[in-house]
């Protein structure tokens, strides 16, 4: 599957199927600081991502005063 990451923007290829929370753990991403989005919809931690999915891991933390 294709995984789009941001800040900086980059793309990864990951073999599916894999659970969302497993993928995040593998990428060492804290689930508190991202959302996982598939075709415009949120996917929860226990969802299984398929080999053909295109997903975005969107950071939710912003800086500044």
């Amino acid at each position: 599957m294709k995984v789009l990451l941001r800040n900086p923007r980059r793309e990864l290829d990951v073999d599916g199927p894999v659970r969302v929370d497993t993928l995040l753990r593998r990428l060492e991403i804290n689930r508190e600081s991202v959302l996982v989005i598939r075709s415009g919809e949120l996917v929860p931690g226990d969802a299984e991502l398929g080999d053909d999915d295109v997903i975005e891991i969107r950071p939710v933390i912003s800086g500044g005063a």
Partner: protein
Amino acid sequence: MKCRTCRGPAIIDLKAHNANFCAEHFLAFCREQVARAIKKHRMLGPDERVLVAVSGGKDSLAVWDILLELGYQADGFVIGLGIGEYSETSTGYARAFASERGLTLHETSLRDDHGFDVPTAAEVTRRVPCSACGLSKRHLFDKAAIDGGYDAVATGHNLDDEAAVLFGNTLRWNTEYLGRQRPVLPARDGFPRKIKPLVRLGEREMAAYCVIRGIDYIVEECPMAAGNKHLRYKEALNAIEAESPGSKHAFYHEFLSKAADRFADDAAGAIADGTSELGTCTRCGSPSSNEVCAFCLLVERTADAVPVTLGERRGARR
């Protein structure tokens, strides 16, 4: 994973609330949390007009949307900060949000209306960009609210923002700021009331709210923010939150209920010192303890500066 309300399939899990929700009931949850914050902290009366400080990011667009959903009269105000493409893109999201919904969005541009931008101000003042940026935002939002006859200014500060600020103030025991860190600052001496309706909702919730509502917002980080303290505090708190869900909520809200009052004197003392002879700025008419307010001084100091192009900034400190 099932929705707490309807037992249908859930799309988001909120560990801090020990709950999962479907899209519809997650939106309802967000509105409820905002309604609770408004009521508990007496932020707004039912017929009051509120000006939302909009940036084009998730929090400010979400707070605007939720206030409207809750039936408040809410207009927006956006400032062109002049931070290159980042500012143009984010202002574009604010405009699109307003025009798609037929809302009133007031606009001002630092460069066009005040002769400077954030990168140039940072260079001239030799301070972090967020300092001139924050000063400009506070000044212009306050002034727009007073001039427009609004009852309050609402900002998109969420639980993560407030917990991070509290963390920073606590690390240094900055008692003056601790005494002032409230979800509502009442109107005083020509300043409007300021409210933070999102203090019960975290950053992840606000991003999820926007995705579900189909609100497009700027996902990219402000190029001036990278690596700043605020971000590091948020990361530290999220590391704790991951091990112990609900920590951020407890840290901030228990502070409000159990500790904030203890620092009230420190804050009151500082306000009294700073504003003992509060008059008005001779240039813009805003409340100020000096003849010329800090914003007008910044306008003056940057008037002759060569505009800084992003990426060429030298020697600025963070």
